[in-house]
């Protein structure tokens, strides 16, 4: 590990000031320490934010509010989360391991970096790690890589299950930074790789995620997260789907669907959602929605199977959501 200095911040203002001076935030550390040990990340100064009062889970008329420093396990076990947003709980419990869920913060989960093996291997070209060096994944072992949102410079998938669920539910993030506080949709946090895969998010320098808000929605109750992977537990998704349905009198009033394991960012399936609005809630509708999801997909040799697997996972996730009484 490259040497670094370490300081614990006592307030958000102090943390932001120190970050502006070149400090890097650390919360749970489960991504950052791993990457620092591999020397893929080499911060010179760490600002420990774990003592900031940014934990806890609460509810207001608008939705569920999750502190950025709440741990994955804590949110998954929280009664208000289970009652208001079962999709969030299911997505959290499908991610990582019990040990990692005790460590990893909600803010850090959203900011975690990709699991592309070439990103994590220093002797492989990677435009995300070393801009302009090339992409070893293209032409490499692509089985786990993206089929949507890719560019010639990067095909890594975004690894967060939570982010997929939050994007489906219309979650927002609250931040604090040198220019004050703001709140914006989580979808706007993530940048497509394009020509600049090393730029992954839209946070400003020193901007700190303080909370996540999940709005109450009529679709929140009939919602499921289905994750397909090589191992039944403790494995990243090959394909995952978050599906939330507002159904009345056998018809879909509104559908919210997002997918993981297939996109370079958490992938909202807007065409599928639009097709479902007003339709009879049945398997025919689920299949039509699934077909629309892959219209723009661009698979590579080695991950064509995701075209079929994504559609099947969408159908099954919609079925599971629709079965909730």
């Amino acid at each position, binding site marked *: 590990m490259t040497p*670094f200095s370490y300081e*614990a911040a006592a307030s958000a203002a102090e943390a932001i000031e120190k970050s502006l001076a070149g400090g890097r935030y650390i919360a749970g*550390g489960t991504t950052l320490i791993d990457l620092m*040990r591999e020397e893929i990340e080499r911060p010179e100064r760490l600002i420990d934010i774990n003592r900031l009062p940014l934990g806890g889970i609460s509810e207001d008329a608008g939705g569920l509010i999750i502190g950025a420093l709440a741990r994955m396990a804590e949110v998954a076990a929280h009664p208000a989360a289970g009652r208001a947003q079962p999709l969030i709980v299911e997505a959290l419990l499908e991610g990582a*391991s*019990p*040990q*990692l869920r005790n*460590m990893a913060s909600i803010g850090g989960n959203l900011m975690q970096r990709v699991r592309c093996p070439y990103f994590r291997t220093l002797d492989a070209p990677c435009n995300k790690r070393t801009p302009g060096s090339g992409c070893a994944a293209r032409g490499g072992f692509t089985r786990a890589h993206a089929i949507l949102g890719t560019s010639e410079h990067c095909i890594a998938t975004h690894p967060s299950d939570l982010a997929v669920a939050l994007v489906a539910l219309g979650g927002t993030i609250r931040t604090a930074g040198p220019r004050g506080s703001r709140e914006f949709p989580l979808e706007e946090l993530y940048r497509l790789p394009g020509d600049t895969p090393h730029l992954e998010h839209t946070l400003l320098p020193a901007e700190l995620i303080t909370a996540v808000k999940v709005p109450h929605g009529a679709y929140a109750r009939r919602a499921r997260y289905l994750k397909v992977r090589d191992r039944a*537990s403790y494995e990243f998704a090959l394909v995952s789907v978050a599906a939330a349905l507002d159904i009345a009198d056998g018809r879909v009033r509104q559908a919210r669907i997002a997918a993981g394991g297939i996109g370079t960012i958490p992938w909202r399936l807007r065409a599928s959602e639009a097709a479902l609005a007003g339709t009879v809630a049945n398997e025919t509708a689920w299949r039509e929605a699934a077909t629309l999801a892959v219209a723009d997909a661009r698979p590579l040799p080695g991950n064509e199977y995701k075209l079929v697997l994504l559609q099947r996972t969408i159908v099954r996730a919609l079925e599971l959501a629709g079965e909730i009484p």
Partner: protein
Amino acid sequence: MASPTTSLTINGIQHDFVLDPRTSLLDLLREHLGLHGTKKGCNQGACGACTVLVDGKRINSCLTLAVMHGGARVTTIEGLAEGARPHPLQAAFIEHDAFQCGYCTPGQILSGVACLAEGHASAPEEIKAWMSGNICRCGAYAGIVAAIAEAAEKNRA
């Protein structure tokens, strides 16, 4: 800079350290205290061999810096037995042959103790899911699940 001293309570005994911030909690236990029961398997949070309890919660000690845990109470495999009497889950691991080479065992046992305390050991399927962060390359899983199930059964009795 804050105080360079980090104070941790490990298996009930308070220790003060002056640390290079790069020191993981795992390396603190092994290199600074000679507590070699906690194992370094992958050193990247994938295998669970380094599992310890921090303030009662199981974590991977390889993926956290010791300086981040000032004031914390850490329990390792060396702190589980009461004198000569093994912890009930240690006894259950022996009873069920829940290991072969033994390298993953301290992590399995600490994780199992937490799994029981969390109430995630009501059935073999639940135990398997909630113990999935601990890999055993000898494949002693059947014995591990049986040992935890038996300990859960005794707790209920």
